[in-house]
Every structure is written in C-alpha cells, then in structure tokens.
C-alpha cells in the first residue's frame, strides 16, 4: 500500500500530511511517500532568497521536516522524493508512474476568481491522476 502526499511547505499541505499519516497508521505495510516539487516558476525567486545552493537545499528540506517527524512518531515508514518542474505535472507523472494507491493533497482554499487567476493545483491533479485522491481542506 503506497500512500503519497504532496508537500509545498504550506499549512494546507501539512494538514494533508497529518491526514495521510493517520491513513497510513491504519494499514499494515503502508508506506508514506512524501513528494516535494521545487516549482520552476519560483526557481529564480527562491535562489535569490537563499544565500547559496546549500542553503537553498536546506530550506527545501526544512519544508518536509515536520512531516518526517510526525511520521516517525506515528511509526510510519517514509520515502521522500524531491522533484523539480511544474508541481501539478510532476505530481501527476510521479503518482501514475509509481503505482501509488492513494494520493493526499492539500487545497489552498481559493475562491473562484483566485482559482481562475492562480490555477488550482489540486483540481488539475485530481483530473489526471489514476488513483483515488483525497483533498484535505
């Protein structure tokens, strides 16, 4: 049983991770797959806000750190994957290629206008992923 959760450092993603860990606890042999996608659109700004490439890597690792801690406390086995690209596309590609059984993602809770302007990652992922998806609000 592979349960995947996509993390982007936001509070919504962390809520989704908590939910994914709870799910994983209820399945023996369940493995939690943490997916982090470094967004191409933010590559320039992230690089500028970090001192150098090492501190950039550290900043990214810190985003998934709380999830790793919770999973350890809950006794859930974890596999972390760091990807680069457009988040929705990379999540879809990974989940479909790795035969994930259940994907958990957070929702930013945008209103209709924001969704039109910003685009909803969770919506796009839901449409193209071949496994059941839980969107955590």
């Amino acid at each position, binding site marked *: 049983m592979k349960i995947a959760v996509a993390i982007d450092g936001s509070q919504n993603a962390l809520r989704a991770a908590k939910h994914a860990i709870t799910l994983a606890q209820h399945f023996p042999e369940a493995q939690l797959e943490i997916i982090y996608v*470094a967004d*191409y*659109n933010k*590559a*320039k*700004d992230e*690089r*500028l*806000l*970090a*001192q*150098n*490439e090492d501190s*950039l890597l550290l900043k990214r690792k810190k985003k998934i750190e709380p999830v790793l801690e919770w999973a350890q406390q809950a006794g859930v086995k974890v596999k972390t994957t760091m990807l*680069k690209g*457009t988040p929705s596309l990379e999540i879809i590609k990974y989940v479909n290629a790795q035969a994930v059984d259940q994907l958990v993602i957070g929702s930013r809770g945008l209103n209709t206008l924001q969704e*039109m*302007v*910003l*685009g909803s990652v969770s919506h796009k992922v839901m449409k193209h992923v071949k496994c059941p998806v839980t969107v955590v609000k």
Partner: protein
Amino acid sequence: MHTYKQQWFGNIRADILAGIVVGLALIPEALAFAFIVGVDPRVALYASFTIAVITSFVGGRPGLISAATGAMALVLVNLMADHGLQYVLAATVLTGIIQLILGALGVANLMRFIPNSVMLGFVNALGIMIFMTQLPYLQGQGAMTYVFAIATLVLVYAVPRFFTAIPAPLIAIVVMTGIALMSGVSLQSIGDLGKMPSTLPTFFFPDISLNLETLKIIFPYSLALSIVGLLESLLTSQVLDDMTDTPSDKNTEARGQGIANAITGFFGGMAGCALIGQSVINIKSGGRGRLSTFTAGVFLMFLIIVLGDIVVKIPMPVLAGVMIMVAATTFNWGSFKFLKQAPKTESLVMLITVVIILYTHNLAIGVVVGVILSSLFFVSKISRVTVTNDAGVYKVKGPLFFASTTKFIQSFQDVKGKEIVIDFEDSQLWDESSVGAISKVKEKLEGDGVSVTIQGLSSSSKQLYEKLL
C-alpha cells in the same frame, strides 16, 4: 558533465521546440530594450541574434539564453544620449574584451562574495527601473493608451492559466495589435519610433576615433556593463543549475559572454547578457542543450526578417503592458518578507543597494557599494571579541585580527595580581596585528611586574605567533 557533442545533440527535438518558443519570447523585450536605450530596434534585434548564436557555441551553461537585456540597456542610456550609437557599439566591443579577460582570470569564483542581499537589491532596482522606463509611453498619450496597456496586462496574466504552449506576451501582442488595427484607434506604434531590420547583420568597425579620449568615454560604461552582464549571467546560470540539477562552467560562461559581446559590437548590436526570464522559459519548455539557445537566436532573426512589416504595427502601449509584466516578474516580491526576517544588516544592504541604483541610475555602482558594505558589516560582526577573567586566567573568545585587537588590548587595562594566564582556546590569531596586540599587552603587563603566560593557542595560531614574534 556531458560531452560538447551531447550538449548540442543530446535533446534535439525538445531543444528545437523550446528554442522556437524562446525565439518568440525574445522579440517583445528586444524591441522594448532598444527603445530604453534610444536606439533603432535593429540594434537590439541584431544583438539578440548574434549573442544567442555565439553563446550557444562558447557559453558554459547549456540552455542559457543570452540576448539584449534590460539591465545592459539601462547602463547604455546615458552613453547613447551623450555620444550616440557608434560609442555604444565601441563600448560593447570593449565590454566583451573586459569580460573575456575577467573570465580568463576566473572571475566567476568571486561570485560567492556577492551576498544575496545585494543580488536582491539588484533585481528589485532593475524591476523598478524597467517599470519607470515604460511610463513615458503611457502618460499623456490619451485614455486609449491606458485601456490597451491594461488589457494587455490582463491577457498576459490570464492566458497562461488556459494555454501555455506559446508565450503569453506574444499572444497578448497579436490579439491586442489585431484589435488596434481593426478598431482603427490611433496609437503610437513601433513603426513611429524606429525601423525594422530587413537583412542579416553585417560586419563593420564602429565609426569612432581610436584614441585615449574615446577610451575615457567608453571605459566606465564598459566596466559597468561587464559587471552587470556577468552578474546577471552567472546568477541565471546558478538558477539553471538548480532547475536542471546539472553543473555548469561559470568561468567558461563569463568568457563566452565576453566573446559574444566583442563580436556583437562589430555587427551593430548592443551589449547583452543572460536573460533570467527567457532562460527559465527555455527550461520549462524542455530546452536543455546548446541547440535550444542556437535555435532561439536563429528563429528570432528569421521572424524579424519575415514579419518585420507586421511588427512595426505593434502599438507602443501594448509593448509597455508586456514590459510592466516583465518588470513585475523581475522584482522579487519575497523581498518584503526578507526585510522582516533577515538580519538587520542584510536588510539594510539590500535597501541601500536599491536606493543607490535608483539614485545613480547605475546598476554596477549599487552592486559594488552593496558588496563593500556587506563585507564591512561582516567584518564588524565577526570582530566581536570578549575577554573574561576567572581567577587570573583571562579567557579570550572570538577571532583576533585587525578589527578586533583594540577591544582585546582594552580588556587588559587594569590587571590585578602578579601572575596571569591568557587562554586562547576559543580564539584564533589571523594576522600580524593580532600577534602585535598580544606582544603589546605582554610587554605592558611585564613592565608593571606581572608575569604573563600564553596558553591554548591552536597550532596555526602558534605558527603565526612564533613566525611573527
């Protein structure tokens, strides 16, 4: 790292497609940068063509897109206004030579001395300046100008949500130019401000007299251009290294920028460097190899020669709308959070860099002052040294060097007792002044009849101490 051949032909299909996308994305900005400098669009378009094609061969970061840029354009404004195009071209050649030399000397290794607070100041000032350059095309041109600029902006931001295969600025330009032509509104157009090239660039010598007088005029500009161009090119290389998880040769890139600029000046093009925005578009579109950069340059030139007559019809407010988006993307909006979270000195360095650039209109001066300032802050930060007295044992904490010795000496002003120990276990001696300070303290105390024992020196400190004493 891949072989040179792999860098060219390892990703042919995706590189050609991405190159075409980037070629399209280069046009609006190249035109706008020409207007910023006050030169004919040809000067920027030729530059974008030659720089892209040359760096595809000699650059150090495959997939990097270099062409005419806003940062370089902003440096050239005054030279163009005061001395004209021939000096701009000569300065471009000299810029190339300077960059070539700096690259050969390993200038890229100095990049790590430029803190990100200075880089943030650089891009933020650049964003603000690009925005300011667009205002003249909007102000006082009538209400329709604003309508077209705003409509363009809306399109530029909304289109990518539905369709990403073609760069949104281009779609916005095509749509808005179409609307302008069909509705027959009178707007200032590109054709009103300059001519489009109809031929490939040709080789010629800039028409200047080769003497010291000329050099005096162009050298400050060339030096500033060299700094600005290398800074943006190496920053962009770092961003691409991160995006693609592949390394690049930064000194080769610096030399490549030099070669490209030196040749570009002889083909009637203005100085350029790497474009962050277009390079990111290239990677996002699947471009990875040298072929993508080459294709971008060639396709740009092809489009301009074929479509020149249509390009001149693009209304200026539409181009200004696109450039406002470029300015907004150049600006790092995370900087506001950075100001709150970063140490005060780093925030200060960023703000001062921005202020100096906006005041002097010179990106290079801002960067240089920013780097000096942040070094001074760093020195003062690490120069904190404390000496604590514990029953005759004086423990020194912190590095001892020219900036911290005064404090060290002061700590031994009123020593009580006949025998003391100075413990350097938590310290490190760095230079002559540290050894000098110790011997000064020792001599003074011994003159007062206090015996002094030095202990806890690290092996390198000891070596320095014994060598210099």
